[in-house]
């Protein structure tokens, strides 16, 4: 079954309305419910939330030596904030899950197909 990465981007310093405890609680419950739905339908493979971009570290080879630097790799305003890896029959099914996620977290979702292990 095709796999997709549903990635959530966070914008640095984005002025978001601070959520009340009640809202935060509600949002968290919705996310939990959605993840439970993903798991029970067999779509969920893995999911995670990432720390802020300034906690990332980059490792690269330069002149044959491994050099470690403070990250992230791309200096940009937007960074990967979290992701889901799901299995879906086709893009429409994946977009269906992405629609549910974006409603719950109120941020755009990028849907990326994995390269099939069969080489597709």
């Amino acid at each position: 079954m095709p796999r997709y990465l549903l990635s959530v981007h966070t914008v640095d310093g984005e002025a978001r309305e601070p959520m009340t405890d009640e809202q935060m609680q509600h949002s968290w419950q919705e996310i939990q419910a959605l993840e439970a739905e993903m798991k029970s339908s067999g779509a969920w493979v893995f999911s995670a939330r990432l720390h802020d971009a300034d906690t990332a570290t980059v490792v690269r080879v330069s002149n044959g030596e491994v050099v470690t630097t403070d990250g992230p790799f791309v200096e940009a305003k937007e960074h990967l904030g979290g992701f889901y890896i799901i299995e879906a029959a086709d893009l429409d099914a994946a977009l269906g899950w992405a629609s549910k996620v974006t409603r719950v977290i109120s941020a755009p979702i990028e849907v990326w197909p994995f390269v099939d292990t069969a080489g597709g």
Partner: protein
Amino acid sequence: MPVVDDAQIGRVFREESGRCVATLIRIFGDIDTAEDAVQEAFALALRKWPVDGLPPNPGGWITTTARNRAIDHLRREARGRELLAQRLIERADDASGEEVGAVQDDRLRLMFTCCHPALSTEAQIGLTLRLLGGLTTAEVARAFLVAEPTMAKRLIRAKHKIKAAHIPYRVPSEAELPERLRPVLAVLYLIYNAGTGGPSGDGLRQEAIRLARAISRLMPDEAEVAGLLALLLMTESRWAARFAPDGSLVLLRDQDRVLWDRTMIAEGQAIVRACLRRNRPGPYQIQAAINAVHADAASIEATDWGQILALYDQLLAASPTAVVALNRAIALAEVRGPDAALALVDELDLEDYHLFHAARADLLRRLGRPTDAARAYARAADLAPSGAERAFLLGRGDEVGSTANEPSEALRNQSERASGTRTP
């Protein structure tokens, strides 16, 4: 035995290639395999049919030949053998279960794949023309004024996305249909409009009508599909009257209505009447209805502008865009005079749209402001996309500019303005 020539085979290609490609995509699950095999089958037809005569079912012959060719090719490569085995298993699964949805035409599936919202509009149009219309990449590139390698790259990228992201090959479910039908209809309308620049666009306009007809036959319950077909037919019915012998544009009000195609009008009007009875209006149906009112009138003066304005009110409510508001204002000029219309037009934010300036120019001319009108015509001509339109607007600008110093013209327009109507 009837003689078969290349032109006849070309016609069969135009009519059948989309269906053949669509069927082969379903069988093999791969666009490139399907395209190549259908191409080969037609190459074979060009050699065989002039000798053997036209087969009783040319489309069926092409599909069968192409399928056999594709299987031959796939058997020769290891990866192909894998694909074949896998596809045959999947086909067996399909046959055992109930097919979802009532519509089974492969072209319809392909239309929804080509116009999937995950693809860019340019890619949607290119794929539709290439795969369903059977146009060559060079022809598609020419239609959209891009270099052939650019179009080739665009098509390759789009086909790769379909494969890599697993864009499905099926007719969407009832629940998804309204949202998914929108880009399909928009693509057909864009293809038609791409063919309205001049006589070289004949093929594109025919293709858009042919596909709209096919889809409306396959989805008889979708009122907007019927509406689009009616709109295309009504627009196309005026084609012969749209250009003067020297190739310049003739406005609706100046067209020789004897040149309008009555057969197309009758078909379009019958569809509009059926839409009215169904009473599920949408933007395409309303635009078709507006055109039907024009087609009913023997002349521009005899036109029921009140009804056209009422339809534009409906259209504006259904799709509240500045372009619709502009067209509504043009109709309003006929009912309440150019003064009222200009006030509305001047509020619209369409600075880069040539028809905005053309409409302003016409209203200013009718209000007896030839200098302002000439300036607006010049701006419209600067922005016009096609040669015929530019030539027309420049001509109008010259005409009105030459009257700028004639007081009689201004006076005549003043009196028109006072009466609120235009003397022809």
